[in-house]
């Protein structure tokens, strides 16, 4: 009887040892926090980027994780609310133990997150918020994966110059994206000796933008640049059509969204849009197919590519020896710092944005990943759909 009891106790002890060893043998998952607008004005961008991140994370997890560690994504909706976004970022860092933070499609919310990221020393992988001063000068923990306003502006100014336009009218909304974008475009045009004949601002929720469009018409520009959010962009183009304006028009990347094209209707026909996603690239096509299978068909927006690029870069940096050592030692603050350092020391990361072979480049003094003149492909809206822009025909409209 005593022997049987001893055998039972031995078996129980062995079982509990095995059970106890379980969690420490399988490495703990690493948390990535995604905080962005998922339900308000910039929700399409926020959700596209989030799903891009999800595709990259799913790929890594399916391949066995990073050194055996699975990645867990925690997601919060910051809406277009800077204070809420900051609170949720803090929650992701402190309560969820996020190794890195993703988000940043809302320019107004980014400065607060940059302050938190630099203060708590957590890498922040930012998407499309384009204000130049986020990366100029760079701050230690902020890394941007989308184009900056000055890069957008340079692309617009180059197109205007190459097309031979001399008089530019700018219409933009009163949000940071519109204001900063318009001022960057005006500066870029000035360096090319091109005159901005009128610059009009409207309130984003105005039902009618006729006064601003009227002033633009009266200035007689030979090309109009519109820097809006999706719905108000639709209103501007409809009003332009209403006032019989047929001037060639360049519009910000928001025209990549379905919302814009539906709201603008036929008034959007012929407008050209800068996009960083070249759907002719085989790797881009493959990723978008994978994306569609997991999250449904979406227009090939740069927001998807930014999310994917950002997450791939983060996963590569996470595989750095020092990051893994800190994670093994359960030293999360050290792992975050090591990850930041890895972003700079690795420096070059593959990118689905720009032309084939384009790469993201980070260094100690540069946290703006996209570089160079090969970032943009021009899309054109026709019949509510996006196609490749015919820039010769665009120039010929002058």
């Amino acid at each position: 009887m005593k022997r049987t009891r001893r055998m039972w106790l031995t078996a129980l002890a062995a079982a509990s040892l095995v059970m106890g060893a379980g969690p420490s043998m399988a490495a703990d998952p690493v948390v990535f926090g995604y905080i962005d607008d998922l339900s308000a004005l910039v929700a399409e961008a926020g959700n596209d980027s989030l799903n891009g991140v999800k595709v990259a994370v799913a790929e890594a997890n399916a391949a066995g994780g990073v050194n055996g560690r699975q990645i867990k994504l925690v997601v919060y909706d910051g809406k277009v609310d800077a204070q809420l976004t900051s609170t949720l970022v803090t929650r992701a860092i402190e309560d969820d133990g996020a190794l890195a933070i993703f988000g940043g499609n809302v320019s107004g919310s980014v400065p607060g997150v940059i302050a938190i990221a630099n203060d708590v020393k957590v890498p922040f992988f930012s998407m499309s918020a384009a204000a130049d001063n986020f990366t100029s000068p760079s701050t230690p923990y902020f890394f941007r994966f989308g184009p900056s306003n000055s890069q957008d502006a340079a692309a617009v100014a180059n197109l205007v110059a190459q097309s031979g336009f001399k008089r530019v009218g700018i219409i933009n909304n009163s949000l940071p994206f519109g204001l900063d974008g318009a001022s960057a475009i005006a500066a870029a045009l000035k360096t090319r000796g091109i005159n901005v004949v009128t610059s009009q601002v409207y309130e984003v929720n105005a039902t009618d933008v006729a006064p601003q469009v009227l002033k633009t018409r009266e200035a007689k520009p030979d090309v109009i640049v519109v820097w809006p959010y999706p719905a108000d962009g639709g209103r501007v183009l409809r009003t332009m059509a209403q006032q019989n304006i047929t001037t060639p028009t360049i519009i910000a990347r928001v025209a990549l969204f379905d919302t814009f094209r539906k709201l603008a209707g036929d008034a959007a026909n012929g407008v050209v849009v800068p996009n960083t996603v070249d759907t002719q690239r085989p790797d881009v096509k493959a990723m978008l197919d994978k994306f569609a299978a997991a999250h449904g068909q979406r227009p090939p927006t740069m927001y998807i590519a930014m999310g994917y690029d950002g997450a791939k870069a983060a996963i590569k940096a996470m595989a750095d020896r020092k990051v893994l050592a800190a994670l093994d030692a359960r030293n999360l603050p050290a792992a975050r710092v090591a990850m930041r350092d890895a972003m700079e020391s690795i420096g070059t990361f593959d990118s689905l944005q720009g032309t084939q072979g384009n790469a993201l480049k980070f260094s100690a003094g540069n946290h703006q990943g996209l570089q160079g003149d090969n970032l943009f492909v021009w899309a054109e809206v026709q019949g509510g759909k996006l196609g490749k822009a015919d820039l010769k025909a665009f120039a010929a409209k002058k």
Partner: protein
Amino acid sequence: MDAIAILILSGLTNGSVYALVGLSLAMTYNASRVINFAQGDFVMLGAMTTVYFATTMALPMFVSIHLVLLVCAAGGFLIERFAYRPLMARNAQPLTVMIGTLACATIMTGAALLIWGPNQLFVPNTFSLNSISVAGITSTPQQISIIVTFVMLMAGIWFLLYRTRFGLAIRAVGVDPNVSKLMGIRAERVVAFAFVFSAIIGGMAGLLVGPFLGGHVAMGIVLTLKGFMAVILGGMGSPFAAAAGGIVIGLLEAIVAYYGNSFYAEPIIFGLILLTMVVRPAGLLGEWEATR
């Protein structure tokens, strides 16, 4: 001349939207002495249910319009029955009741998010969005319908308030609910009517403005704010004063945008509201309406 006509049309369009929200806020306020912070969300509900009935369910627009207004009326009824009335029965302060309506607004936004998702949606147009020229001014039937609806509603409300016994009852409840009860008026029914009627006006505004603004779950709060500005500027005492406030704001926005820069429109309008409150605390038309 062309420019002035365009500015007036633009000001009237924007102003009519603010005025519709403002007058619906004032209708509820006059009957219940409560600002219904969920009022702008009925504009959202109007826009989003138009998407649901006309696009998702593919119902004819004529049927969709009736269903949209029915849903909004039901929403107004629910707020009155399950937020306003229980709080008043417990002698809640007006501020508490207003917070109650704010809670309703948040619930409506959350429910809309679950139903329609986060993206901005294209709201099908009731009237054509193709340009037409009237007396040299180019507009769209949809845009003109906003102004026409506003004018017709104003006329209808005036008739209701000043030419019917029920209107007299509404005004009596607005002056003193307790005394009106002593006169045999069923004040609760009047308040319920005000909530339902205001919700219908909000839904109508959403139906008309949705094709321009795009349907979005968060669009209500901005419109509530604009409507509230209209109410403060025009005067809390009457729907007509609030509507006038909305039109003034719309015209000012257009004028400032054309002759100055729309960036300064809001500071100028808020400055005007502050000035009005100092000079005429009851609003631009508040005292005149109160005297009537």
